[in-house]
């Protein structure tokens, strides 16, 4: 693990309580949180073919960010119902540098929320729970962590998708959070982002699979 690749310049947390959106106020407001870490991009300004070592180096960064976001949201892990992740790469970098976040960002939140899979298997894309499990829930955070990424200038906004942690098709939990850091990323920086939420859209009412009806425990339904 090459920790020299990791230089964190700035960390921004954002937590919001949504009481209503001009409909009936929620008994418990929806709480959504985002954390954005501004890191130096060690590959800025040139083409580097071997970038995968940074994926490992980002692992502890992701775990720290997930824990820090949970703490800022001030709710127990059991209340986190949806998640997402994203990256904004500064102008001297390439989109592929943002893709380094897929494994460590996703793994970090799954680790936090109770998924106890094997990290190496996850890195190889084999981390999800086996499909067609019996009706009993085999674990938590079974669903893929949705993501977006872009190359952008300082203050660029990224719409980071959110979906249910256990079943990607839960319609009430399809959502997104706009995340941006004023002043970042500079050309040689990357902003890595995690988002989590305590539930469905505040006035969710367009049908589809409900969280209460998840039955297959395969990360989808």
């Amino acid at each position, binding site marked *: 693990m090459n920790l020299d690749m990791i*230089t*964190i*310049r*700035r*960390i*921004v*947390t*954002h*937590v*919001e*309580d*949504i*009481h*209503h*959106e*001009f409909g009936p106020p929620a008994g418990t*407001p929806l709480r959504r949180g985002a954390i954005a870490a501004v890191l130096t991009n060690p590959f800025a300004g040139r083409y580097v073919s071997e970038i995968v070592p940074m994926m490992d180096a980002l692992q502890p960064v992701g775990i720290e960010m997930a824990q820090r976001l949970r703490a*800022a949201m001030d709710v127990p892990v059991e209340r986190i119902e949806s998640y997402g992740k994203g990256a904004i790469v500064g102008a001297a970098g390439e989109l592929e540098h943002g893709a380094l976040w897929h494994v460590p960002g996703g793994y970090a939140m799954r680790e936090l929320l109770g998924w106890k899979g094997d990290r190496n298997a996850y890195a190889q894309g084999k981390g999800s729970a086996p499909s067609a499990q019996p009706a009993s829930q085999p674990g938590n955070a079974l669903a893929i962590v949705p993501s977006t990424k872009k190359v952008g200038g300082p*203050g660029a*906004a990224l719409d980071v998708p959110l979906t249910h942690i256990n079943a990607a098709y839960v319609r009430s939990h399809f959502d997104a959070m*706009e995340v*941006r*850091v*004023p002043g970042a990323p500079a050309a040689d920086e990357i902003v890595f982002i995690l988002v989590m939420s305590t539930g469905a859209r505040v006035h969710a009412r367009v049908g589809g699979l409900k969280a209460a009806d998840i039955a297959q425990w395969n990360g989808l339904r």
Partner: protein
Amino acid sequence: MAAKIRKLIVEVDETRIEAGRAVDPPTRKALAMAVIENPYAGRFGDNFAENLDELIAIGEELGGLLGDKCVQALGIAPGAAQSYGKAAIVGEAGELEHAAAILHPKLGAPLRKAVEKGAALVPSAKKRGGLGTAIDVPLGHKDAAFVRSHFDAMEARVSDAPRANEIVVAVVVTDSGRPLPRIGGLQASEIKGEDGLR
């Protein structure tokens, strides 16, 4: 509670490195925002509201609520707060004076209580705006307005607010000044903190 709050948002911005240099301890700025209904929205022409007391009361309520949220997010004792600022963005069915009614008459006292003391003026900004409009909340040292290292600003913005009949109210509290201050002037260590200026 007078304020009809649709959303409440708290952000913390922590800078560990600036211009390649370590900032130790990191500088930290906390921003708390409330998206509220504007009780005087649409009061134009014959319906013009002379009296804005409802917003003045809302300002008093939000000064304490948002100030406390900032201090809590920083995880500091109230007395450890160093600088502050406030701002409001009024949706298009409101007027600039509505922001003034929230910010100026009564928001300051409970905010000062939240940061323990606060002899200095709370610097402010206001504007009319639409969804996602950004406002730069000015910052100054809470006990001595001339402390040069603490002149700063923090950008505040809510992607889906203000709607036409809403107001975004923002308060910022910090536990630090700029990351690498080096342009002289009055230092925080030199202040008396009595007249709010020096």
